[in-house]
């Protein structure tokens, strides 16, 4: 047949892909498979239990820690430090970022300071904070607050400054005062960016609470991990890590729920 001859081509219906539907199943299955493989390898004796105890042992240890109240005690301490530090830091970041984003004058003062101090690894400040505030709770809360401050301040500043100027114009033309423009237009418009900052701040808080407790604490999840490592109590060490990762997942989820409740009207 002549390949250049006119020919007929038909577009027909074809079955729709259905990959999406079993996606969640694959996800849980992959996690289960890794845990199962870990159990098998650990039980086979190929690796000494002190390096890699099986997940079942870690789970038993976790249950034991929970029953003895050890879990609640150290988790409570860490949560208190995180909660207070995160609230103080992100609150301050929100305040500073909002006004720096809304006013060129405030930004001129704040922006160079932020840019100069943002890159400091916050954990490096801990010895200084201990010197100033003592080895107690205050220094640990302070280092977390500082860590949470920056991403929220930078996010709020970018979001507030990036508000569609047309929306600001509309508000002014309808009689909004400068403060009303900030709180009724710029702030709600910046919320998605602010939440991105809050998520970063939550991750930073978790990182800093563990680091701070490893350096300067006698209790808390971070201390438990370090202490268990020193004593080669590997199941205890891993159990504490599991607790941390569950906490990380929960805090991300909580922020998502909050964001969905607060951020409105976007498709």
């Amino acid at each position, binding site marked *: 047949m002549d390949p250049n001859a006119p020919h007929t081509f038909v577009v027909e219906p074809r079955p729709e892909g259905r990959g999406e539907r079993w996606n969640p199943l694959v996800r849980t299955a992959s996690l289960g498979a890794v845990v199962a493989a870990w159990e098998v390898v650990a039980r086979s004796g190929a690796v000494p239990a002190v390096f890699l105890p099986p997940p079942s042992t870690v789970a038993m240890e976790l249950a034991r820690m929970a029953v003895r109240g050890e879990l609640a005690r150290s988790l409570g301490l860490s949560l208190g430090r995180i909660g207070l530090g995160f609230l103080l830091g992100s609150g301050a970041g929100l305040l500073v970022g909002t006004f720096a984003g809304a006013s060129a004058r405030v930004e001129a003062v704040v922006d160079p300071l932020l840019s100069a101090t943002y890159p400091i690894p916050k954990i490096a400040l801990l010895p200084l904070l201990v010197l100033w505030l003592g080895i107690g709770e205050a220094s640990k809360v302070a280092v977390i607050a500082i860590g949470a401050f920056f991403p929220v301040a930078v996010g709020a500043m970018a979001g507030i400054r990036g508000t*569609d100027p*047309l*929306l600001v*114009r*509309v*508000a*002014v*033309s*309808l*009689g*909004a*005062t400068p403060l*009303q423009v900030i709180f*009724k*237009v710029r702030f*709600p*418009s910046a*919320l998605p960016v602010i939440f991105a900052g809050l998520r970063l701040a939550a991750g930073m808080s978790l990182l800093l609470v563990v680091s701070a407790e490893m350096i300067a604490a006698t209790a808390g999840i971070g201390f438990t991990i370090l202490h268990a490592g020193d004593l080669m109590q590997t199941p205890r060490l891993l159990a504490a890590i599991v607790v941390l990762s569950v906490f990380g997942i929960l805090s991300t989820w909580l922020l998502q729920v909050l964001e969905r409740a607060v*951020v*409105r*009207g*976007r*498709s």
Partner: protein
Amino acid sequence: MRVRFESVRKTYRRRNGIEVEALAGIDLVVDASEFVCILGPSGCGKSTLLLIAAGLVPPTAGRVVFEGTPAGHPRTAMVFQEFALFPWRTVLHNVAFGLEVRGVRRAERVERALAWIRQVGLAGFEDRYPHELSGGMRQRVGIARALCVDPAVLLMDEPLSALDAQTRQLLQVDILALWERSRKTVLYVTHNIQEAVFLADRVVVLSRRPGRVREILYVPFGRPRTEDLLADPEFARFCHRIWTSLRDEAQAAMQEADGGS
């Protein structure tokens, strides 16, 4: 309520420091309850004129005088080409925004906003968010939001330019009906000749940049107007007469834009 533009000039300074004259001395009087359309080629500064009237942009020289502004009313409210709705607010709270920032009690502002939502034909959509609405519905919200503060002058900056042709025609008819009920003073910017003639008492034709008043035409068609007017040969003739006056300006404006500005 009269608005007098007295030798209003506007010069912008571009980022590269070059000064661009947008408006070169506009003199114009808009009477109470008059519907005036400002027509001009793109980039002739007609939107700038509205922004100046709204107090959002200061004139470089000249002034705008609002004579006999009724007490307790804002001078102007503006409808924008891009709708510019607050995406996080429902239809109701978009429309009520102006009253909210003016400190009107909640019950009263909700009542007044609902009345305007009905007027623009959006009853039943009060609790929708802007992204759930079509373009035509969004601009209805924009119009209701501006009218809700009961401004002395309504400023409309190409309110229908972002809509498809059919929606545009439907909204033209609705705007006309709204105006005939309220008899508000309207200053309406457009680049669409048919739209200007269909809506306006007077059409002000601006020249290309720097904008100056080239011609002011009284629209000879009586009111109330209906869509039948669009099929009237007299209507077509009148529009064509404006086009012949505008054509050279539009051509020159287009070539200037092509030449890189």
